[in-house]
């Protein structure tokens, strides 16, 4: 017979209208420790038509991805993002926290006010505070809904983020230029920190 706590966690997550953190589940179940139950449930649903997944620290049940072709036809109400919005979303996700000026520096064009609004309305981008530099610009980041929507357990799962970081493609142009000219390309990232020294020796 299945454990009572596991059943309770299963019922709670099935009934929930939004993904829940373990703390929220625990609070709902009068403080029970739910970590093991979550692991047991995730294992149980592995390979079934419905799966238990963790997205940005929140858990929810969803249909298995390989069944998309069966389920998709009825649900085509998903809004298509414009190219600009897609690009801005990618920049926010891979660079967060990021200011509008930084987004514009990468894209080389002004970002229409509406573009960020659309992403915030979709619930994927949020204001993440202000950068403590002159002008205190607003900075943006992604939301747990963003991770849930794109099936990412955390930002580390962003496709190709490790390669992009290793290639220095997430660094600003000036930093990348400094590290490129300082030393050979192989360990350019590591040398980025001490350009002066290399400049002297050159």
């Amino acid at each position, binding site marked *: 017979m299945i454990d009572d706590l596991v059943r309770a966690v299963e019922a709670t997550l099935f009934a929930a209208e939004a993904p829940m953190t373990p703390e929220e589940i625990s609070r709902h179940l009068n403080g029970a420790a739910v970590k093991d139950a979550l692991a047991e449930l995730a294992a149980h649903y592995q390979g079934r038509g419905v799966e238990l997944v963790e997205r940005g620290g929140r858990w929810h049940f969803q249909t298995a991805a390989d069944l998309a072709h069966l389920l998709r036809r009825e649900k085509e109400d998903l809004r298509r993002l414009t190219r600009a919005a897609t690009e801005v979303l990618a920049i926010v996700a891979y660079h967060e926290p990021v200011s509008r000026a930084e987004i514009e520096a990468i894209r080389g064009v002004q970002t229409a006010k509406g573009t960020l609004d659309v992403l915030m309305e979709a619930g994927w981008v949020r204001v993440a505070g202000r950068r403590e530099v002159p002008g205190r610009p607003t900075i943006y980041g992604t939301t747990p809904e963003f991770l849930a929507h794109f099936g990412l357990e955390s930002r580390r799962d962003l496709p190709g983020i490790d390669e992009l970081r290793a290639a220095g493609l997430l660094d600003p142009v000036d930093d990348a*230029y400094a590290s490129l000219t300082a030393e050979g390309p192989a360990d350019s990232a590591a040398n980025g920190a001490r350009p002066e020294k290399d400049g002297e020796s050159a």
Partner: protein
Amino acid sequence: MDGEGAQLAFDADAEWDGIGSGATEDAALYLELDGWEGPLDLLLDLARRQKVDLRRISILELVDQYLGYIERAESLRLELAADYLVMAAWLAWLKSLLLLPRDPEMQPSPEELALKLQLRLQRLGAMREAGARLMARDRLGRDVFSRGAPEGLRVDRRNRWHCDLFDLIQAYGQVKARTAPVVHMVRERPVMTLESALSRVSSLLGLALDWTDLRQFLPVLSRDDDPRLVKSALASSFVAALELAKQGKADIAQSETFGPLMLRAAK
């Protein structure tokens, strides 16, 4: 390499002339005029057409392609946004720097400018690709679905009110204290009325033989008496003196400002 670039541009040119008939890749390029997200976007697409890694693109070739594109757009009188023209001017300037003999003093060097442009294109390209990969993922609500009709978890909040007996009794005490009927007691104030001053001054005036200081007419008051009574007696007696003078029963004289006020019965 430069020659190749020129060749490519010419090819594009040829295609462009024949746009009415064939929708080739290059023709499509020109038709998408409104589709570019700014000059960097256009440059990135042109760079991609070099079909090499973005790290190995030829900047000179790219510049030629861009300038060629802008020229043709202008000759067709297509309206170009200002930033495309600004970029064209900058690229033409960069090209001249790259081709002319070097000025070793120049900072930043044309090579640095070219490399930085290349780095910018790489970054934009990386983000464009990342966006595409993101969009291709199994997306919630398109490819995978959460429960269609969740029962929902409801937490009904209830208030449990707290109050202790002392607070209760104290509150009642305050209500009672606040709303107890208020009785106003008007206390008798120590004053000498005008009437009593008038009768006193006029009776004493008859006894006085000569000029007499007004203060002599005041009732004798002890040190313990209320000073307000003293003031009141003086004020009332002064008004009484004025009244008597007005009635022609008394004369008033004062030899200097703030000096003693002298009084005598009218002759």
